[in-house]
């Protein structure tokens, strides 16, 4: 079949139209009679003129080029691209939820408030925190909210000198950006030879200007921080707080809780750990949970309960204020709530078990052909270094393209930065052994192809809709919209 490549603007013919209206039974007036001169266009809009079927074919064809969890394996490290159960969508589409308006009086939306309230209780149990806000729209938004809460806490105590946030090299990639966005200075903490936070370097770095340490545990290397209790002690003794990036919670959920490790603030990604759609299929939600002493600073309103009635509590004078219009992405919370209820406590724990099992199984298979630094039991993800392949002439990016040719979405490439030619791979709990085996076979095939003819691999992909894109030109001279010649 011919693949559509033309833009809508390059298709169609003058005068073609997708609809025909019945003839007018009232006298027609021209726009120039109805509108004042200053709001009238001087030239005609350049719109494409197309029939309905042309438009439908165009967009349907484009939609077939999508790659998502519903079409294939998506081992994007740190992103937890787990399957999104369709029953979540059904529940979120119930008319009682979709027909609500955020301006309705509280007593008419008791069910929705109860769902928020119940979800908060579940998240508290999973994380060991004391209160949650559901407002943040995604992970990075949760991070910013969390740091703002920490900032408000220090300031409220009159502690104004804390202007630095410590971020390990193995942290989730958005952390340094969040720190800068919140007006703090980033202090990078190196990793030791086992891939843990370098405790000695941490001790050197903390002082009276330390506002917080942002930690992802397990880290982006897929490794559990073995010294977490000591880390917490070092930061707390210096008067700093501990921030938990929940990007990797799916590795430990049901086994260990950030609240018990000493974390003061936690953000979760409902669109990672709790199976709601991710990326373009979003939106996401990044709930932020805190320990008791930070509750007064959470965004308002919080959902609370009094005499069996649920209500929005705005009486939080030290709150950092709202961080999202209305009350967050409610539909996402409904989906995640449904997931939690269907899985139950045992099910959530099993999801962590399966995620870790899948990751270690796949890493073991890949180790026959690839180098994986930090030889330890991994949690939910692991990082392959394509440094040996790069020496043969095919880089991590080339391996990623070769995976596209074999029907797999590539892992996260070139992150974390401490692993050269990184391929950060996260198979997640929802994939079958057969899928993991097929991926390992594809990787083995690529390893052999590199040995035979690295140059050929480096020139791929060959079977995708478009071949190797010119990334340099795309960054330097991007063409962002169609313009008439």
């Amino acid at each position, binding site marked *: 079949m011919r693949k559509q490549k033309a833009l809508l603007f390059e298709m169609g013919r003058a005068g073609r139209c997708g609809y025909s209206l019945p003839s007018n039974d009232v006298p027609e007036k021209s726009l120039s009679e109805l509108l004042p001169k200053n709001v009238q266009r001087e030239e005609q809009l350049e719109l494409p003129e197309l029939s309905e079927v042309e438009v439908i074919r165009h967009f349907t064809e484009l939609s077939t080029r999508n790659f998502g969890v519903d079409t294939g394996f998506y081992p994007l490290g740190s992103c937890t691209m787990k399957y999104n159960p369709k029953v979540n969508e059904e529940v979120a589409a119930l008319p009682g939820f979709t027909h609500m308006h955020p301006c309705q009086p509280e007593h008419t939306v008791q069910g929705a408030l109860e769902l928020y309230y119940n979800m908060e209780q579940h998240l508290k149990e999973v994380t060991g925190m004391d209160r949650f806000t559901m407002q943040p729209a995604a992970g990075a938004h949760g991070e910013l909210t969390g740091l703002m809460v920490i900032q408000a806490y220090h300031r409220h105590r009159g502690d104004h000198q804390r202007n630095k946030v410590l971020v390990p090299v193995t942290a989730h990639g958005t952390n340094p950006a969040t720190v800068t966005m919140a007006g703090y200075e980033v202090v990078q903490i190196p990793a030791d030879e086992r891939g843990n936070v370098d405790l000695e370097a941490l001790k050197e770095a903390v002082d009276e200007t330390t506002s917080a340490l942002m930690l992802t545990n397990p880290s982006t290397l897929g490794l559990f921080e073995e010294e977490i209790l000591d880390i917490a002690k070092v930061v707390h003794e210096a008067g700093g707080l501990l921030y938990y990036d929940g990007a990797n919670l799916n590795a430990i959920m049901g086994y260990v809780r950030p609240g018990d490790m000493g974390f003061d603030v936690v953000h979760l990604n409902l669109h990672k750990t709790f199976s709601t759609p991710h990326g373009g299929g979003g939106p996401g939600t990044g709930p932020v949970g805190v320990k008791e002493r930070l509750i007064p600073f959470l965004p308002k309103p919080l959902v609370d309960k009094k005499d069996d009635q649920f209500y929005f509590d705005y009486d939080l004078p030290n709150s950092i204020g709202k961080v999202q219009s209305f009350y967050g992405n409610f539909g996402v919370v409904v989906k995640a709530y449904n997931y939690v209820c269907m899985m139950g406590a045992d099910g959530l724990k099993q999801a962590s078990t399966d995620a870790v099992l899948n990751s270690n199984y796949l890493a073991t298979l890949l180790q026959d052909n690839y180098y994986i630094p930090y030889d330890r039991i991994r949690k939910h993800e692991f990082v392959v270094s394509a440094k040996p392949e790069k020496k043969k002439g095919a880089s991590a990016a080339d391996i990623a393209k070769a995976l596209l040719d074999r029907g797999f979405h590539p892992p996260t490439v*070139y*992150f974390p930065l401490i692993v050269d030619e990184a391929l950060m791979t996260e198979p997640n709990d929802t994939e079958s052994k057969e899928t993991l085996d097929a991926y390992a076979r594809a990787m083995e095939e690529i390893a052999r192809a590199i040995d035979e003819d690295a140059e050929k691999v480096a020139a791929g992909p060959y079977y995708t809709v478009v071949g190797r894109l010119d990334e340099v030109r795309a960054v330097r001279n991007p063409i962002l919209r169609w313009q008439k010649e």
Partner: protein
Amino acid sequence: MKYNVIDGLKYTQQHEWARPEDGTAVVGLSDYAQDKLGEIVFVELPDVGAEVEAGKSAAVIESVKAVADLYAPVDGKVTEVNEALLDQPEVINQDPYGEGWVFKVEVKDESQLDKLMDKPAYEEFIIKEEEEE
């Protein structure tokens, strides 16, 4: 050696080079660093007159693969920046030790330069880094 290392320059462990030039130091990225980063697409320069601190970020180099900080090799005031890089950042890839220089800094403390690596030491450093698996 696969990478070009020039005699007469001083090198940091983060792969910057510094060339002493009557009271100032010209600063750039080593050939090894530009190769690691891949094709460079954007450079954020410091302001002329800004005070930079040795080991602290002074400029930002963005490639198709990653965004990296360029750390100042010495303390001092920035006296000149290579504005040509704003339009043609790829010059760093093509000529890292020449046209690809990034900024010049007034050297406060000559001894900071002495502590940096010379050609043989830097070559050894790269070899070690390459072998580290």
